[in-house]
């Protein structure tokens, strides 16, 4: 049943009428037109759909839009500030930490979640936190380098 749902998305208030049981991923991609968040597996195994909810990296394919009511959601589109790349985005580009780029928004958002909680993660902490974000092109080495660089700059 459609219901009114309000939350904060990329620093702006959003209000929409939809079934609160729908997954956030699809609401972002359809109703809200934010296409940077990707579907990869639909069951939380790959991390392509990762967004930040109340400062924590979450899988938007497994979270209902009803459950983010009143919360603060950030997607890849919300990372740039005043037209400037976020240090993580800059570091991913400079390290060539991507190939096909499909998993990249999820990778960056997951790393962002880590850096919010732990601004100076060790190599092992990065590996551990990124473990369940999958990259088939296998840019892992450069992704770790990029997260380290970004962490030093933040």
């Amino acid at each position: 049943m459609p219901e009114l749902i309000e939350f904060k998305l990329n620093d702006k208030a959003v209000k929409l009428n939809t079934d609160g049981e729908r997954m956030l991923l699809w609401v972002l991609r359809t109703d809200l037109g934010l296409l940077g968040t990707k579907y990869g597996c639909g069951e939380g195994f790959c991390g392509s759909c990762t967004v930040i909810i109340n400062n924590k990296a979450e899988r938007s394919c497994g979270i209902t839009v009803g459950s983010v009511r009143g919360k603060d959601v950030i997607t890849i589109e919300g990372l740039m500030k005043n037209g400037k790349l976020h240090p993580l985005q800059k570091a991913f580009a400079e390290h060539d930490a991507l190939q096909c780029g499909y998993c990249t928004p999820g990778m960056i958002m997951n790393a962002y979640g880590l850096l919010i909680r732990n601004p100076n993660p060790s190599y092992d902490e990065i590996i551990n936190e990124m473990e369940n974000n999958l990259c088939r092109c296998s840019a892992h080495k450069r992704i770790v380098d990029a997260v380290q660089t970004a962490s030093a700059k933040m």
Partner: protein
Amino acid sequence: MKNENYLDLNFKDIHAPFEVDRRDFLKIIGGGLFVLFTVGDTLGYIQQEQRRRGELPTDFNSFLRIDEDGKVTCFTGKIEMGQGIITSLAQMIADELDVALDSVQMLMGDTDLCPWDMGTFGSMSTRFFGPPLRAAAAEARIILLELASEQLKVPIEKLSVDKGVIYEKTKKRNKVTFAELTKGKKIERHIKEKPVLKDPSQFKIMNKSYTRVDSIEKVTGKAKFSGDIILPGMLYAKILRPPAHGAKLVDADLSEVKKMNDVIVVQDNDLIAVLHKYPDVAEKALLKIKAKFLPSESKLNNENIYEHLIKMAGDGRVVVNTGDVKEGEKGSASIVEETYYDSYCAHSPIEPRTALANVDGDKITVWGSTQNPFTAKEEVARALGVASEKVRIITPYVGGGFGGKTTNLQIVEAARLTKLTGKPVMVAYTREEEFFFDAFHPAAIVKVRSGINESKEISFWDYKVYFAGERGASHFYNIPNSITKSYGSGRGSAANVHPFATGAWRAPGNNTNTFARECQIDIMASKAGIDPLEFRLNHLTDKKFIEVLKTAGKKFGWKSSYAFPSGRGFGIACGSDAGTVVAMIVEVDVNKKTGNVKVKRVVCAQNMGIAINPQGATIQMEGCIMMGLGYSLTEEVMFSNGEILNKNYDNYDIPKFSWLPKIETIILDKKNEPPQGGGEPAIITVGAAIANAIYDKLGIRLNRMPMTPERIKEALSVKG
């Protein structure tokens, strides 16, 4: 490298080349300078195939345009799926033409705007497409110099070019830009004679490292993949699927789903689909269909498949035959006979197959994730019964391919559904569908019998490969008596061979063949009591192999004084793919209790001729190494009676961050040699290098990939 490396490419669909008339075609594009060229003379084998299977593109199949604003655009049917040609091809153009790299646009994979291309696979873009592309850019530069010479009234030899400006060497103010020269003109040239290309010593952009030109779009989430194309009024379709390959639909009760609001139900022969403006609602609607299927007749599974394959093998084809194997056997002091097994693997790109199709009058346009848009175009035309010029395929960024996105089922389905409904329709596979419909890397068997003589030299080599194909099957060692035979095709589509589709998987066949060959060589080395690096060098005269092996050995710090197995966990392998020669040394640790293998370090040296973008090439090597850990250690499609048991990543393990070894790559500096393949070679040696390292660590031989913890524990218990 001859033709053997290309034999296994997926050429089955090469036919019906470029049919749009050239004048019509160029009319669409507008004004400026056009240099038309054919990717042909370096593609002898492909031409031969095209002659055999269909017409040749007689006119041209690529072109370069310098438009009236001086902007340079390359129109090509190649696509970008992460391999990086969007950057490396642009580098070639920019350098030959003397323009800045960021002034070159690549327009890729649009079948209405780009001339016919067979597809993007086989590590062929740089080595075959590159040289004529450079020639076209060089030709364009000559034409522009001629125009400038007329306009500036200065002979060509007194002119120079820099960043799209032509000026008089001694009077730099006397200048004209590319844009000024092409303004209001429509010049069309076809390359006839080969223009002089720049010498590597003159390169300013080629052979230099650049980061990806598409990275900003990709890190900001703005890059468009097929699923990100949105049209007004579009619907998402979910299609009824059988539970197993070969399961036939008996009956589908659509009464419940038809009661749902705003859901459109389509039934057209075998195609039953539900459509809604939200993909998640369509997915729920699909569950309301009550369908009955007859079970698949397939009785095959992961264990009985090998016996079945051997039965289906038929007569083999001799790939290479030198000397006399029987004579070689007689002169052998010791003979080793082994059988190697490889499993079905999924491509598993993180972007599942996706397509958005739109019908507009009698024209169908499909945005699809594909490695071969021109093949997709023909497939759609056939399925819809329309002329192929009524079909346009546009290829946005492709979210990984690895050889898998050469089957275009989702594109055909989307096209059928848009025609049936008259609305734009998106077909985006779920992960389960992506596994189910993948054309897997084929399961394969290799039987090798080989011997060594009293002088510790390989005396004979009898190699039979079943269903991996010939790529990488023939060896490169000095063996006087040797035969290589191939049974069945690496493409395996003959009826009743495989229980589902199989196809090209990154370096098709070569992973299996290199695994078998390099494990066998290692066994021979230990029989001979010779260090495996030294043993290989003893049997090689090809300088490329010797150089990469020595380079990798030096980087690794290899010392040949140990007897193997030494307990250190060092393994070595070498091979060749797509014209590139590669050597790899790894160090592993194995947990005897759990059977887990940790690859700690990988050193890889390769000779790929000139690397157009050395950093891009390095990234491909890193990707090959990391991805290779998957087929070596965990990746095996599980199946039973036609059902694919892997439905998501919870039971199909692809490499993860914690697997990351220390990776050290070396690209030999060969800037005066032509470019060779870069996207595949470094993956071929991973399996054997790890197997050989496990042997060195524990003294056990793993002859079956993936080398899972269970198989390692089993081998340990047999050894006792």
